[in-house]
């Protein structure tokens, strides 16, 4: 369906994935130094999901929305990593001007429509983006990334039902990492295959390996083509694993065996893709080390210092952004409207 990916693009994609991994690890470090507050949910282990799908979408054109594990989706959507790090550091230069935090990264310019902290909350919002796209008659699609845990919320069922009923242009991506915080899939639902739950609403659906970015990209091609061509929504289940705990306050170990974690570490998506590119002769081992060093250097020299040195929001602006600052419309002063 798609032309084979050029070597340069494969190299760039690996570089982006390495950078995302190091970005998240740097966040953990900053959290331990208390530069980052609140809750922090990191992405290592699941990179092939966001990168595989979004590599095949049109960033800045299509809309992306997700839950609270949102930094990497925002970066791949086109948000500036400096602004994201500054947001985590609660600075005015942050993507949400320090009002959002880790779970609420937004970047309207790149059509990254936010991270949301209520599990399952983005499902209807994503369908609403699809409804808006349909009303505007553009060729955009909305892409909604959620975890498997979200599928036990009512919003999953309500949204699958309406999205299919109204054939809304939405790609639902289920990053099935097998755990809803600390409760396993098997202990949460009798239907372990999430794509079958979407199929119950007559939705086109598929399940593939979420650790191999090539597999994800080819599944995404099919899914995106389906949605963009007006055939309605699509549910893509990606089997993945988070290598860290649910958040910084969870070791991720009490409810998962060491053997299981080790098994998934052997299928780390960043290193799987590295090995693949080495095998293809696209890169050699030293080039990968260079990429890795460059990523860390960019964080150390550019991104973290920007976050550290940026000013905090002004307390005088506390109530800014609660409502529209211009109240004229609310007061009934409509330009050219009425008498």
């Amino acid at each position, binding site marked *: 369906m798609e032309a084979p990916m050029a070597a340069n693009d494969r190299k760039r994609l690996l570089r982006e994935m390495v950078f995302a991994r190091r970005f998240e690890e740097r966040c953990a470090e900053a959290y331990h130094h208390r530069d980052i507050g609140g809750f922090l949910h990191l992405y290592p282990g699941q990179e092939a999901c966001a990168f595989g799908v979004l590599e095949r979408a049109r960033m800045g054109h299509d809309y992306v929305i997700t839950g609270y594990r949102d930094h990497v989706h925002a970066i791949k959507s086109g948000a500036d990593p400096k602004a994201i790090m500054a947001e985590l550091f609660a600075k005015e230069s942050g993507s949400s001007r320090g009002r959002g935090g880790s779970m609420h990264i937004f970047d309207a310019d790149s059509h990254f429509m936010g991270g949301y902290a209520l599990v399952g*909350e983005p499902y209807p919002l994503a369908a609403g*983006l699809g*409804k*808006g796209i349909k009303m505007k008659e553009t060729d955009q699609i909305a892409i909604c990334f959620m975890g498997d845990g979200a599928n036990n919320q009512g919003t999953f069922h309500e949204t699958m039902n*309406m999205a299919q009923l109204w054939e809304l242009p939405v790609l639902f991506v289920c990053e099935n990492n097998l755990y809803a915080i600390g409760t396993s899939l098997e202990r949460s639902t009798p239907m372990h295959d999430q794509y079958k739950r979407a199929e119950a609403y007559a939705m086109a659906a598929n399940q593939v390996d979420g650790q191999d970015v090539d597999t994800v990209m080819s599944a995404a091609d099919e899914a995106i083509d389906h949605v963009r061509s007006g055939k309605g929504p699509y549910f893509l289940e990606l089997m993945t694993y988070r290598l860290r705990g649910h958040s910084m306050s969870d070791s991720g170990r009490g409810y998962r065996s060491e053997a299981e974690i080790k098994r998934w570490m052997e299928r780390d998506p960043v290193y799987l893709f590295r090995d693949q590119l080495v095998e293809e002769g696209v890169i050699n081992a030293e080039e990968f080390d260079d990429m890795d060093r460059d990523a860390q250097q960019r964080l150390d020299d550019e991104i973290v210092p920007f976050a550290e040195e940026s000013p905090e929001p002004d307390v005088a602006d506390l109530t800014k*952004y609660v*409502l529209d600052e211009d109240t004229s419309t609310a007061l*009934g002063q*409509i330009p050219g409207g009425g*008498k």
Partner: protein
Amino acid sequence: MAEIFYWDAVRRAHDEELAHDPLVFAIGEDIGLPGGTYKATQGLFDKYGEERVVDAPISENSYTGIGIGASMIGCRPIIEIMSVNFGLLALDQIINAAAKIRYMSGGQLECPVVIRSPGGVAHQLGAQHSGRLEKIFSGTSGLRVVTPAFPADAYGMLKTAVRCDDPVVILEHEAIYNLKGEVADEEHFASLEGARVVREGSDVTLIGYLMSTHWNLAAADKLAEQGISAEVIDLRSLKPIDSETIRQSLAKTHKAMVVTEDEAPVGMSAEIMAVINEACFFELDAPPVRVAAEDTPIPYNHKLERAALPDADRVAEATRRLLGRA
């Protein structure tokens, strides 16, 4: 100037806004082909089609969320929740999403969504169809909450709410849809802020909104027969509350009577009393009094149902007591 039903005023505002902007759409249960439980969208399905007057399945939280999501990219959805009691199912989308998206995105996004829902106590609908939930919405930062008590405001406030870039909750009342009132023929917009003096008086100020405004007007008639001149303020907006109009009235009457259809504990009356305390304390020459619903689920039995609520007689009686004229 035509005298029209309240429901027809709401319908007319829908019609004009749907005609004005192709990105306006209405969504709710039974609002399309069936024409709406209270006829607020009657005839519009045929006129604008099923994509713009959308019959939603019974999924209040998610169809509300669909409206909110669409509003984030420029649509202007008018969401109808058939009964405010069902709105409890949609609170995640309204309170956690719509009310907070502008703020938590640092002003990058906005949700220009309208959520209309009738509430209040009608006639023997029982505890689960008689909720008065204005306290929930009015206590939420990031929302505007209005309560049009008359057809003219029902029309003009919905028109403005659709154009406004903030999420607006419009609380209507099941027992007011058949009220008739004058609405100007030419298109016009009403402010979403500001209370209105709907009857002038000099002895006492009766403050209410939605149904309690109508009780207060009837009570003022009764009080007039006994030589008491009551001023009646229709709050119109519960968020924000217009403290200045209240203060100006109390500067004249010096006595405040707060009347609400909801229960007193943590209810609208508590908030209005606090506003009076903060903004008007030195205008008062008696402690303000509130008349509110009893602290009980609303019963089915009609006699019990009436006993649970204020009415014009109770407002008049409490007013006489406040004035030492009981």
